[in-house]
C-alpha cells in the first residue's frame, strides 16, 4: 500500500468526513492497556446466560414473565457483545454501521412479532 504510509489519526479522519455534523456517529476507540474490557465481557456473558438458564429450569416465575425476562437478558447480552467485542463504534471518519444496525434490530423484532400477530388467526366470525 503506497499512499498509506503517512498514517492518520482518528481526529484527522473524522475532520475529513463530509458529514461530521452527524455527531452521534463519531467513532470511539477503546483504550487497551490490559484486556479488562474483554474479560468483563466474557464474565458478563456467562453470568447472563446462566442466569437465564437457572431461571427457566427452576420455573421461578409464570411462563410469560419468564419469557420476557430471558428475552431481555438475551438482548442485554447482544448489546454487550456488540459493545465490547464488536467495537460497533469504531470507524474511519464516521461509524456509519450504527444506523443500519439500530434499524435492523428494529425490523428484526418487528418481523418476528408481526409474523406471530398475523398468523395467530384471530379472525373468527362471531
Amino acid at each position: 500500500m503506497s499512499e498509506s504510509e503517512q498514517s492518520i489519526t482518528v481526529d484527522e479522519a473524522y475532520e475529513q468526513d463530509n458529514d461530521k455534523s452527524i455527531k452521534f456517529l463519531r467513532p470511539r476507540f477503546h483504550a487497551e492497556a490490559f484486556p479488562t474490557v474483554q474479560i468483563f465481557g466474557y464474565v458478563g456473558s456467562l453470568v447472563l446466560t446462566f442466569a437465564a438458564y437457572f431461571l427457566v429450569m427452576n420455573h421461578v416465575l409464570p411462563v410469560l414473565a419468564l419469557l420476557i425476562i430471558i428475552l431481555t437478558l438475551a438482548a442485554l447480552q447482544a448489546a454487550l457483545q456488540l459493545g465490547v467485542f464488536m467495537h460497533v463504534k469504531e470507524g474511519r471518519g464516521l461509524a456509519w454501521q450504527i444506523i443500519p444496525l439500530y434499524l435492523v434490530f428494529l425490523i428484526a423484532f418487528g418481523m418476528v412479532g408481526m409474523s406471530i400477530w398475523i398468523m395467530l388467526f384471530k379472525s373468527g366470525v362471531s
Partner: protein
Amino acid sequence: MFAQRLMESYRKLVLAALAAGAGLLSAGFSFGPKYVLLHPAGPVAKSELHVFILALELMAIVAVIVLALFFYAIVRFRDTAGNTAPYTPNWHSHTLLEVSVWILPAILLLFIAIPTVKTTFSLAHLPKGKDPVVIDVTSLTWKWLFEYPKQHIATVNYAVIPANRPVLFELTADSPMNTFWVPQLGGMEYTMPNRVLPLWLEADKAGTYWGHSGQFSGVGFEKMFFNVKAVSQKSFQTWTTTTASAHPMTLAAYDRLLKQTTVGDSTYGNYPADTFPTLASGFSLTGSGMYMVMHDKKGISYIPMVGS
C-alpha cells in the same frame, strides 16, 4: 348546503366521465349488469362497494387537482420562443406549499381511512340476531365441494342458499390455495390447506350469482366457476329435504374429486365424516387433520389436462 350541491354535481361529473370513458371503450356500453362489482346483491357486497365508491370519489378529487396543476405547468412553462411566463430558475422553496403538501393529503386520507376501518371491523361479524346457514367449502383441484353440516348434504360446483339470511362459509382446501369469491355477494377469502377461514355473505334477493376462484392453482383453475343460487327460505327447505334422498357421497367418490380434473355439478344426499376438517376429526387450528393428511394420501398422481 352549497357544499352538498357541489358534491352532488361533482359526483355526477365523475360518474359521467367514467361512464363516458367506459362507453367509448366498450362499444356503447354503460355500466350495465355485467359490471358485477357495481351491482351488489347483498349487504356485504353493498358495504364494500360503498367504501370503494367513496374512496374513488376522493381520489378523483386528488387526481383533478394534480392533473390541473400539471397540465397548467407544462403548457405555461414550455421553453418556446416568446414565452412570457415568469422564469424563476432559483425558486426552490416555499414553506407554506411544502407544509401543505404533507398536511392536505393527510387530511384527505382520514376521510378514506375512517370508513375503511369501520367497514373492516363490521364485516368481521355476522349480523346479530340472525341465525346463519353454515356451509363448509372445500376447494379441490379444480372444483368446489360444498357440504352442509346441519343438513348432511353436499354439492359440487354449486350451492343453494336462502335469500335474506346470512350464510357462514367455512373455507378450507384439500389442494393448493384458491380464493372463494362470489362478486355480487361480497369479497373473497382464501381457502388454505390446514386452515379453516370463515366468511359470511348474504343475498338480498333470489337469483343465481356466479362465483370464481381468484387464486391460480393449476391448469384447470380457470374452470373453477360455480353458481350460488339464492332461493326463498321455503324453497331452500324443500331443496334440502329432497336432496337428502339423493345418493350419498362415498369415500371413493371423494377420492375421485381429489384427482386433478374438472367436473360438472353434482349433488349428494350425505357425505363421509373427515372430508372436512372438524375438531371431531382431530383438526385443530395448529395441526393437521385434513383428509389427505390423515389418510396419508399425499403425493396424488398428476393427471395433466389436455387442451379441454
